[in-house]
């Protein structure tokens, strides 16, 4: 299967890569794990003239807790997320997404930056990341800016990333005590499929056991992963229980905007949003109770 013709660059630092991007602009594409870009080039959907590899840039490989924040380099692979104790301990909903992404072979190549950068509405990592309130760090020759991940996605394959910018890091506040989150996806099979619906939920309790903050994020049911705002409104100010989770599920269903496609009909996806919202809230609640 022929790939388009391009030049290949392998800068050693983010600064060098930014320099190249500012030179080549729209003619260039970054490649990390390549599991999205290579397929798009083979299918002749994309034909960049310049390919800038970032998989050899060591600055992008870190995964640390620094003060009250968890910092994840954009080059961290999905397999690394699956094996990380930091992720399992602090961000289990992200770990669930990582464990359900692709196949073990794909996970060894695929990066978190590439999963965000490809901006697929069905991607496995964005819902968990958005549920934790993640921010992304974008760097160009001109400097560095940060953006809530909520504002990063614009539509299928479209993001707020400028042609000369690199996503370098994902930042997440260490979730407070009394908070929990979970992610559930459904598809046709366990491995090697595209999600039909995926949902991540997060909530945090105050000292009286009242939900003070909640985020419910739905994938596959709109042009980008997005928040179920009415479900969040129902949760905040209440004590968690099954009836409340059911009501939140119904609200999330109503917020979703699924379409009919060859994978399934919109009606099915809409009702699954309700089921997965309930299940993720229940799992998040169990996680909170297990901390006590």
């Amino acid at each position, binding site marked *: 299967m022929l*790939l388009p013709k391009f*030049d290949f660059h392998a800068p050693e630092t983010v600064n060098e890569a930014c320099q190249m991007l500012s030179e080549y602009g729209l003619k260039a594409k970054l490649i990390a794990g*390549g599991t999205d870009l*290579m397929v798009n080039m083979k299918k002749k959907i994309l034909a960049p003239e310049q390919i800038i590899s970032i998989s050899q840039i060591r600055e992008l490989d870190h995964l640390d807790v620094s003060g009250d924040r968890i910092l994840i380099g954009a080059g961290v692979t999905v397999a690394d997320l699956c094996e990380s104790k930091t992720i399992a301990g602090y961000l289990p909903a992200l770990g669930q997404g990582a464990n359900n992404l692709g196949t073990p*072979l794909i996970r060894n190549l695929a990066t978190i930056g590439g999963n965000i950068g490809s901006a697929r509405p069905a991607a496995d990592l964005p819902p968990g990341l958005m549920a934790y309130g993640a921010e992304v760090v974008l760097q160009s020759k001109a400097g560095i800016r940060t953006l809530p991940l909520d504002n990063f996605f614009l539509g299928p394959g479209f993001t707020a990333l400028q042609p000369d910018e690199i996503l370098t890091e994902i930042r997440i506040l260490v979730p407070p005590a009394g908070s929990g989150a979970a992610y559930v996806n459904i598809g046709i099979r366990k491995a*090697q499929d595209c999600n039909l619906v995926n949902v991540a939920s997060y909530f945090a309790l105050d000292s009286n056991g009242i939900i003070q903050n909640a985020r419910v994020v739905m994938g596959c049911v709109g042009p980008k992963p997005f928040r179920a705002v009415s479900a969040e409104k129902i949760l905040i100010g209440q004590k968690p229980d099954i009836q409340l989770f059911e009501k939140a599920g119904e609200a999330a269903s109503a917020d979703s905007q699924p379409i009919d496609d060859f994978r399934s009909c919109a009606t099915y996806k809409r009702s699954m949003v309700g089921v997965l919202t309930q299940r993720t809230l229940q799992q998040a609640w169990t996680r909170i109770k297990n901390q006590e």
Partner: protein
Amino acid sequence: MKKLIRLTVNDREYDVAVLPNQTLVDVIRYELGLTGAKKGCEMGDCGSCTVLMDGKPVNSCLVLAMQAAGRKIQTIEGIETENGLHPVQEAFVQKGAIQCGFCSSGMILTAKSLLDKNPNPTEQDIRKSLSGNLCRCTGYQHIIEAVKSVTP
């Protein structure tokens, strides 16, 4: 334009001139003549092109050869020792886990990397780790049994 890169394959260093748009599987098969890694879907779906890169199984149809420069690559040709076949290879022969053989290189390399990391996996671990390697002859049961037979 072709560029000279150094690839380490099966502990041997090769200086090869490659095009920027050549995939690792193409270079391994057509430039180095190591045809154990197969080309099936070429889209990351089937796992027949599996090689180990720094010990981890990857789809070599999704890796640019230039991205593999400086990494340690192992193919099916490189896991035999002076004592003969690798235990996983031997088990595949003994348990009838090879039918047409198209998936076998990938299956064996993925299983080897699992056993290197976890010498005593459960059947579920084995199934999960092989879930990116498809067998069009559908010989899964014998393949799982072969891998199980190598565990203590």
